[in-house]
């Protein structure tokens, strides 16, 4: 494959001009004149290398391989020359030099490494030619290599200079040589890998045996080499794996006589397959975990149709919840891409992967990383599978009928018969071709696809339900006080959040029969109060407020998406929400979820019980008094929407003595009641708005004023465009711009008269004490001064006889003094 591509890329030399005998060429006078006048211009003609031109134009088209061979031979000769030159230097008269990392370098080493360099240089040049084929990893590898070499260069040059005149130390030589040879073999192996890889890429069929060699290198003890080898193999396989699945010949087939070509192909295929199998086995060695995983993921993603894909998939799914972040990410993204690019494998892998993940979840008792389940979100369920085909069929039939009718009408015409038969034949052929095509490609037909999709769905929902059940179980377990079960490494309910998200997304695909169960689960989960009488137990197993809110949310979404067709009582969820609002703690719980539940459960709900709506209105207003502006704002937005929808609730805005006619059976508002229907909120007045209009946040205070001015009689049908979520996001502190409106404002301030209290600020100073202190101060200063002067004099007396140069003494004397001053 690679070869053919490469061959095409070779640019043929420009076509020769048509052969014209030299006699036939006629020069015009002008031409001659021009040449005569500008003889210098024509000088190049004499210098033309005719041989080269002949070779280029006359000879066969040269491929890159030829060039490569040429280069190689050239290099070889060059190397040999070098070797000869270096032998001249006596290797004995060299002293080893110890580098910083403790390695001893000898003159000999520098030579050898030079040799190695030459080789690598060569290899590199070769590789460079094929750069566009190589994948990134190899390129990186190469970059590493060159860097290392550059370092060596730097090291070697100064060494050489130093070593010139040193004497030998033979004792260490052997040891050093060993080390050297290790380094050398490493280099050699690397080069070998690169070479083999190049060969394979350039002509896989001819060089398929190199795969074995590469695999052998991968069995090396040196982990670095193995890693490099694996990556090279990955690059090679990615490129040379054919677009079909290899089926090894049966024994019968082997016995049959076959042409050379087929034999060659068979050999090629079997070798390829064996090598591939071996490569996959590398994953089991834990040392190469990351690299091996990279290989597996890349291969699965690139060639999901190829043999052993099941093994690959199993390996990838096994690592989907790996504690190693890199591996986990890689695996998850691979699975995701499998889900989103079903065309590559016809959807079969999706089913398998989902199945495997489901089993994985089961095996680990739902203690996995959330990412493991999040991948389900990438699955696409196509509801129209088959529908379109059916329609097509239907149309066809219809058309055929039409045609038949028409044809019957025109049956009189004789020629039509022939045409018809011709048409029939053509359609027959077309059918055959399409059948063949289907056989060749993996495109499964609609029926099969639908089947697979059902299977996928059932596996997905099985997983989801398992998680829900597991969560319920752990909560139940806590009440029995089972201290042995401790939360796993991923938190108490790691999979619940993605599970709820998934349920919300795929709820339309869920069978109606299960919805009842689902709602029951959700109800139980939502009502699992985290406030229990059991305070001593660390209730980490309990659901958080966010999770419970999410349960309510999912329940509502499920109902919504099924067009409220089900007769399920959502009352319990409202009760939960009514109480969860109070459990909410900013910072600990997600305000976004709260805002979303306000939106879905309150704003979007069409017909609400008046009592309940009033209870929520009151609670939200109270809530707004105690929390930050983001929460307050989303509560107020919801409150406004509720009031707009429920005309009668607007009675809360008016202080109607005694609650008026609307107040329900409960005459007085019970703020501590847990059931919204029993709170008697209709009997109260929204006094909160009065305080909220004094809120420091201008937006909230205006909002409160607007709400309090809503009219009771007039039915305001327009709804505010802002959703609670939007309000929450806009007013959260993270989004706060903190921009000060810096308009120049006049600040009129009463000038305060200078206060009389200033007088008392003057401390009373005891003059006697003060003068005493001053005196002390003076005495001390004078003492210091005189002391110093005395010393100076002493010093100068001492120094005078020693040194006659007065200037110097003076200078020296100044110094100590000034130091003391400082």
């Amino acid at each position: 494959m690679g070869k053919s591509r490469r061959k095409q890329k070779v640019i043929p030399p420009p076509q020769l001009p048509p052969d014209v005998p030299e006699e036939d060429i006629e020069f015009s006078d002008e031409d001659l004149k021009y040449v005569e006048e500008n003889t210098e211009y024509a000088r190049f003609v004499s210098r033309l290398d005719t041989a080269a031109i002949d070779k280029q134009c006359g000879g066969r088209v040269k491929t890159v391989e030829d060039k490569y061979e040429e280069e190689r031979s050239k290099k070889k000769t060059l190397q040999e020359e070098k070797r000869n030159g270096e032998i001249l230097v006596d290797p004995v008269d060299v002293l080893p030099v110890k580098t910083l990392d403790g390695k001893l370098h000898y003159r000999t080493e520098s030579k050898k490494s030079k040799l190695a360099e030459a080789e690598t240089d060569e290899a590199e040049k070769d590789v460079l030619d094929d750069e566009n084929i190589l994948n990134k990893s190899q390129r990186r590898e190469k970059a590493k290599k060159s860097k290392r070499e550059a370092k060596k260069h730097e090291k070697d040059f100064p060494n050489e200079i130093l070593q010139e005149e040193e004497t030998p130390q033979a004792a260490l030589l052997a040891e050093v040589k060993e080390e050297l040879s290790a380094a050398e073999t490493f280099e050699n192996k690397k080069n070998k890998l690169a070479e083999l890889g190049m060969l394979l890429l350039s002509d896989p069929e001819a060089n398929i045996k190199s795969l074995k060699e590469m695999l052998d290198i991968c069995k090396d003890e040196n982990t670095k080499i193995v890693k490099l080898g694996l990556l090279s193999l990955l690059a090679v396989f990615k490129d040379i794996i054919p677009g079909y699945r290899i089926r090894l010949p049966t024994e019968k087939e082997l016995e049959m006589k076959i042409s050379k070509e087929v034999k060659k192909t068979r050999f090629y295929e079997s070798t390829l397959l064996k090598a591939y199998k071996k490569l996959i086995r590398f994953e089991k060695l834990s040392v190469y975990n990351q690299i091996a995983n990279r290989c597996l993921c890349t291969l699965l993603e690139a060639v999901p149709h190829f043999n052993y894909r099941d093994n690959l998939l199993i390996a990838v799914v096994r690592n989907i919840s790996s504690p190693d972040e890199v591996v986990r990410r890689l695996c998850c993204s691979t699975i995701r891409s499998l889900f989103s690019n079903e065309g590559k494998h016809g959807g079969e892998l999706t089913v398998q992967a989902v199945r495997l993940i489901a089993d994985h979840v089961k095996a680990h008792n739902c203690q996995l990383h959330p990412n493991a389940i999040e991948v389900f979100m990438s699955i696409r369920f196509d509801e129209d599978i088959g529908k379109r085909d059916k329609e097509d069929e239907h149309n066809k039939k219809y058309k055929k009928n039409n045609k038949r009718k028409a044809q019957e009408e025109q049956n009189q015409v004789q020629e039509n018969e022939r045409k018809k038969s011709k048409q029939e034949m053509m359609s027959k052929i077309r059918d055959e071709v399409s059948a063949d095509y289907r056989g060749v490609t993996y495109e499964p037909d609609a029926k099969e696809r639908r089947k697979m999709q059902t299977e996928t769905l059932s596996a997905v929902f099985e997983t989801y339900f398992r998680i829900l059940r597991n969560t319920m179980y752990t909560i139940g377990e806590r009440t029995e006080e089972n201290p042995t079960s401790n939360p796993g490494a991923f938190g108490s309910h790691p999979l619940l959040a993605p599970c709820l998200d998934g349920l919300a997304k795929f709820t339309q695909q869920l069978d109606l029969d299960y919805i009842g169960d689902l709602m029951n689960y959700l109800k139980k989960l939502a009502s699992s109060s985290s406030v229990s009488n059991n305070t001593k137990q660390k209730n980490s197993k309990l659901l958080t407020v966010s999770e419970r809110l999410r349960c309510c949310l999912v329940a509502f979404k499920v109902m919504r998406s099924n067009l409220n067709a089900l007769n399920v009582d959502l009352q319990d969820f409202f009760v939960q929400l009514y109480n969860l609002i109070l459990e909410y703690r900013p910072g600990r719980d997600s305000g976004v979820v709260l805002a979303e539940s306000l939106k879905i459960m309150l704003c979007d709900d069409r017909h609400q019980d008046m009592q309940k709506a009033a209870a929520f209105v009151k609670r939200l207003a109270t809530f707004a008094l105690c929390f930050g502006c983001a929460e307050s704002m989303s509560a107020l937005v919801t409150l406004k929407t509720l009031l707009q929808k429920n005309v009668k609730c607007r009675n809360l805005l008016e202080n109607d003595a005694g609650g008026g006619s609307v107040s329900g059976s409960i005459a007085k508002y019970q703020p501590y009641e847990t059931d919204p229907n029993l709170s008697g909120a209709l009997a109260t007045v929204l006094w909160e708005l009065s305080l909220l209009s004094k809120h420091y946040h201008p937006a909230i205070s205006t909002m409160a004023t607007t709400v309090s001015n809503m009219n009771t009689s007039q039915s305001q049908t327009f709804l505010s465009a802002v959703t609670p979520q939007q309000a929450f996001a806009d007013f959260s502190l993270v989004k706060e711009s903190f921009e000060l409106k810096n308009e120049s404002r006049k600040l009129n301030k009463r000038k305060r008269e200078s206060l009389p209290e200033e007088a008392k600020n003057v401390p009373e100073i005891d003059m006697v004490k003060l003068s005493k202190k001053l005196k002390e101060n003076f005495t001390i200063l004078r003492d210091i001064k005189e002391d110093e002067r005395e010393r100076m004099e002493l010093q100068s007396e001492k120094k005078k006889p020693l040194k006659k140069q007065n200037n110097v003494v003076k200078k020296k004397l100044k110094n100590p003094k000034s130091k003391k001053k400082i």
Partner: protein
Amino acid sequence: MGKLGKKARKFAKKNLQSVEKRSRKLKPFIKKKFAKRNERHQAGDKQEKKVEQQPKKRCQEEEFQDIAIDAVFGKDDDEVLRDGDSDSDGYLDELVNETDSDIMKCKVLSRSFLATCCDMVDKEQYVPALVRLLNWYRAACQYGHEPSGIARPNIYYDIEDSETFAKVIIFVLQKADHTFRSILGLSDSSTKEKILKLKNNPKWDSLKPLVKSFFRSTLHLVKQAGDLEIISFTLTQLRVSIVFLAAFPDLLKKLIKISVHLWVTGEETISQQAFLILKDISMVFNSECFDSCLINMYKAFLHDCDIPKANSEQRPFLRDSLVELCSQDVQKSYTKASVSITQLAKLLKMALATKNKEAVEKIHSGEYINCVDLWVNFIAANVQDCDLQPLLYTIVQVINGVAQLIIGPRYLLLRVKCIHWLNHLSRTSGIFIPIASLVLDMLEYKTTNDGEKQEQKLEAVSTVKLPKNWLKSQNFQEQCIFSVIELLAVHFAQWSFHISFPDLATIPVMRLKKFHERSTMEGLKRVVKRFIEQVESNIEFVQRKRDDVTFSPNDQQSADTFMQLEKQNANAPYTQYYQSIIDKALGTNKKKKK
């Protein structure tokens, strides 16, 4: 002699100026601070522009490290102290000329001679005598600090004994101002303008060098003196003649510099005196001086916050005095405050967005906290008189952000501080700032294991973050609950007569009840229960009154007048209860400080 010298040196080391001086020099920031001031003088009105431009530039840079809280007011060059350094020379020459012109050449000041001189000056305002006196005064001020080695014999003044030394200083400090004024024929309360008009006065020409000499010597004395009382006396006397400095802008700058330094580092009285000087300067002179004072004080204050030191009790004084200064000219301070608060907000935003360690640490630094504290107090002091709404709003958001930046028991003290600020702002401005959720979260800070009953005192803690082992102590939980009750009491006391009070208290009461149910500590339970009872009686009272009114929530005016009468009386048991809690908290705080 040698013996005496040793003793003297020992003493000097203990309490004298050289030591003080060295310790001052060890605080390098002071130098830096003062060094920066020079440019401002030259920049003149560019200053304002700079202040406004800088934050804009900073907006674009996202590197939060670049945002320094104190770098707000422009960066200054190190083009320092040029005049300050040179003046010792220049002014010496000046004096030499004067003395040369003088007929009497007396090198050693004797007691009798001083007495006659003083007499002449005091009674007749005899100018040559005053000149002499000022020279002696200068010599006294510089005594022991003369640039050594260059003692030129003809201008070398010596002082006979300690008494003369004390007398000359005290006399000049006490009488100089009066003498100058009487020579010039000025009253004691003459303004700056009058001093500037003096330029036309022929007497001024002869007197100007004398006044200048007086100021220079005095400033030198203030700078060099190590004794508390000498400095404070000098400062007090200097304050009277500040008006004269209008003629010497350089000296004025120098005085500002010295005063700011003394204000930040000095003892209580010195700090107060220094502040009074600064305040006088900023009141008497033009707005440029006000800016200069404000900025220098602001920077020095913030730098001081970073230095952990024993006498942190002085910080409230520093803050209050700075607020007092700011309140002198709210218009000007407003721009400064808005720049500074924007800077604070930017830092916070960065920290909220990234939550990385460095950014969070910056928020939790003493500098940041004290800066917020400063502006909160400034706003609280002036919000009733001026419209500071934008500042108020932003600072409240910033405080909310700081409180929510990192949630956890270890930041209890910071959170308590934040809520204190919010309560303070709410009380002074009369606007509503919800704090309940911030407070109530502290109820759930329970890390106490029942078995452990360590007693640890929270008093010594001044850091933002509490050490981990504290969280386990019983004391910590008590502290939590007491703080909750105290903060709620302040909050409720403010709104206890508001018509919305019952609703405001609903959620806190529910939460407290829940806590009461769950808690196992009897002592705390009792406190909480009492609080709940009081609040409930308050709720009931307001509810009863509320049921009688006829207006609706949209009638804001009526709502505002609701129960105003009762509020005036404040005899309700719950009001007294709130007050007692607040007082108690104040008392414990004071105790802690002592």
